């Protein structure tokens, strides 16, 4: 039996290091996209630049949606580890809802831009903007799918050791996405708004 327990603890620590290293690789993906954005941001091709098209209030709202969801995902993790399955599910549900809210605002922002003729094909600046922000959005979407699958698993099987482990991994991933967003918020939106 002891052999099984150490085996499962080793699995936990393995998986968490693996996810962590995956996040490190993701940092480099975003590093490339940030560098590209900063280098290409003046390539507006006669179109609008950053100060003309962003709606800062909307972005502040989505920033807070994501920040709140980071908190709720942490709470879900704590609830799960104290054995509170219901609490974990409620907090996870809140995280999913906030994530969907964030994504909806992002899609609204993209839709508005495209409707006004500022789609990604218009200029290098817009390409870099859409792809940097869109890659983050894609990660959020993956996170939401993961969270829904997790919720489904926990509601069916309860807080198995594997379930708690997976929820812990999800929380780390979600915190990381919030952290990336802080830099998108600062570099793309805030610095873009300064003329």
């Amino acid at each position, binding site marked *: 039996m002891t*052999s*099984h327990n150490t*085996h499962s603890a*080793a699995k936990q*620590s*393995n998986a968490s*290091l*693996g996810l962590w*290293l*995956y996040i*490190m*690789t*993701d*940092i*480099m*993906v975003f*590093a*490339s*996209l940030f*560098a*590209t954005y900063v*280098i*290409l941001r*003046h*390539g*507006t*091709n006669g179109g609008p630049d950053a100060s003309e098209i962003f709606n800062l209030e909307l972005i502040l709202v989505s920033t807070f949606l994501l920040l709140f969801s980071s908190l709720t995902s942490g709470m879900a993790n704590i609830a799960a580890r104290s054995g509170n399955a219901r609490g974990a599910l409620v907090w996870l549900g809140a995280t999913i809802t906030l994530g969907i809210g964030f994504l909806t605002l992002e899609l609204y922002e993209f839709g508005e831009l495209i409707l006004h003729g500022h789609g*990604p*094909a*218009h*200029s*290098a*600046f817009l*390409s*870099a903007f*859409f*792809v940097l922000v869109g890659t983050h959005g894609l990660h959020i979407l993956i996170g939401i*799918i993961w969270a829904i*699958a997790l919720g489904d*698993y926990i509601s069916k*099987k309860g807080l*198995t050791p*594997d379930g708690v482990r*997976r929820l812990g991994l999800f929380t780390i991933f979600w915190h990381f996405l919030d952290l990336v967003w802080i830099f998108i918020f600062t570099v793309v939106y805030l610095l873009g708004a300064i003329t």
Partner: protein
Amino acid sequence: MDWSWFIGRFSAEYLPSDPATIGAAIGMPLGIIAVLAAITYFKKWSYLWNEWITTVDAKKIGIMYMGIAILMLLRGGADALMLRAQTAVAPSGVELFDTDTFQQVFTAHGSIMIFFVAMGAMFGLINIALPLLLGARDVAYPFLNSVSFWLFFAGMVIINISLVVGGFSNGGWLGYPPLTGLEYNPGPGVDYWIWALQISGIGSLLSGINFTVTILKHRAPGMTLMKMPIFAWSVLVSMVLVMLAFPVLTATLAMLSLDRLADMHFFTSDGGGNPMLYVNLIWAWGHPEVYILILPAFGIFSEVIATFARKKIFGYVTMVAALLAIMFLSFVVWQHHFFTMGAGANVNAFFGIMTMIIAIPTGVKLFNWIFTLYKGNIRFTAPMIWFMCFAFSFTIGGVTGVLMAVPALDFQVHNTMFLVAHFHNVIIGGVLFGFFAGIYYWWPKVFGFRLHDASGKLAAYLWLGGFILAFMPLYVLGLMGAVRRIDTYSDPTWQPLFIVSAIGVGVIALGVVTMVLGAIYSIWKRKELADTDGDPWDGRTLEWSVPSPAPHYNFAITPQVTRRDEWWYQKKNGIKPPQKSDYVDIHLPKNTAAGVYIAIAAGLAGMGLIWHIWWLVAVALIGLIWIVLQRTFNDDTEYTLTAQQLYELDRKASL
């Protein structure tokens, strides 16, 4: 009726039209059908499925990597023969291939050799040797390992399909825009290149994570980092570079692909885009990639030399320090690949000096190997001969590299045959020779019999001789002004040198044939070459403590490590035979087909993106997510081997 919603942009014009490609387009499917028919005839499908396709055993995955790498070496080698045949006869008025075909051939040669031969052989050898060297049962994530391999396989399939339909990229192995942009290359060729690299690249990235966690978490008890074999250190550093560099490739290829698919403007010359940015980003991946390939080869040589000189490696700590220095420095030299693009003196000087500095840790390693050999009791087996050939060739390649690190000199030889000779000098003479040494060295551990030694030595000499004939003329041609990637030239004085070079490629081909024949001969004589005690070379590290071929659980009893070269000292101090009570229950991963399914879905998505078949992309991606979720939430992925079963298996294997 309009079928374009169904078949995308595919049409009859993409079918092959010239004789060379028609031959390949007919021959390749026929070959595949013949193989499939043979498998069916000999009723080997269930064996293949259960023992290989669904396997999560690192050693079997490693063997499959090696198989693909060797197959692709033949394909890439055939490309090389075509290229040099063309340049040998070009001024005589014979045109073997038209310019566009020639461009596709050198692009395919470069992409295949780097991504599917060098990377494939590297991951193959790591899979085979690393867990055994660490005293581990398996890699950290056996299933992820299978996913990585099958993604690599899917990329390989995609790059070869281009031979049959649609043609390949003509943009060189790194595909610089604007040539690879929509404007100059609207066809599917560049997309084949992008998606073959992208899919196999993601596999490499996952492998990087996998092996890093394996090294950090799965070492045998007592094996601290500083007690690891140098091979494990070199793999660790190489995999850290994979994790940091490959994401840059992924992002860069994604952006190039979006330029092509969604008409974006990252690297276009209009719309505010900047093609120079692509060159910058691709080399921010590309330079570390060079070290990703060479470091495991260095690690193999470190093991080979210590074993065959019967001495511990000289300067272990400086070896590790050199590796760590390379881990950092390889990320601050990338601009030396485009000194001539127009950056100022400050930028060029900085990257030039960094490039010269990175030669120092590399030199340290070479001296350490030489000092290990000094006063050693050396046995000149095939792996040692590969080392000698490497030391000769790699030193020349390293020195010409330092030459080109001087920006002023680089302006003279940039993008000439001199550069081509330089990087073949380090990649053939460094990376490939290292991997060949690894194949001869670890072959008995996986197959249970040694490779025929004399044929291995002969192959090494043929490779080295062929290499000198093929590439020394290119150094001269480069200094004479021959630009790389030319299919024809007007200066007749170049022709003799090009002919010598073509002969050299032929000699290398003889070397390949010798290796293949040697392997076939060894299989035939496997009884005589059998490795009966699992330790054919009188080795020093833990992989030689288990029977050959290594059992699927690697170690029946987890080894306890107290020092470097543990096995060597265990043999000296006398090995205690294990007691029945030493065996405990172990958990092993179950075989799974999910890895294959994920790769099929990824490959189909790639084909959809290449041919603009959007429904296929959607279906494949949804399928992909579905399989990943099914697998992620599957709790039943392991089985237990009881102490009793293990004891019996181990007794049988040791007999």
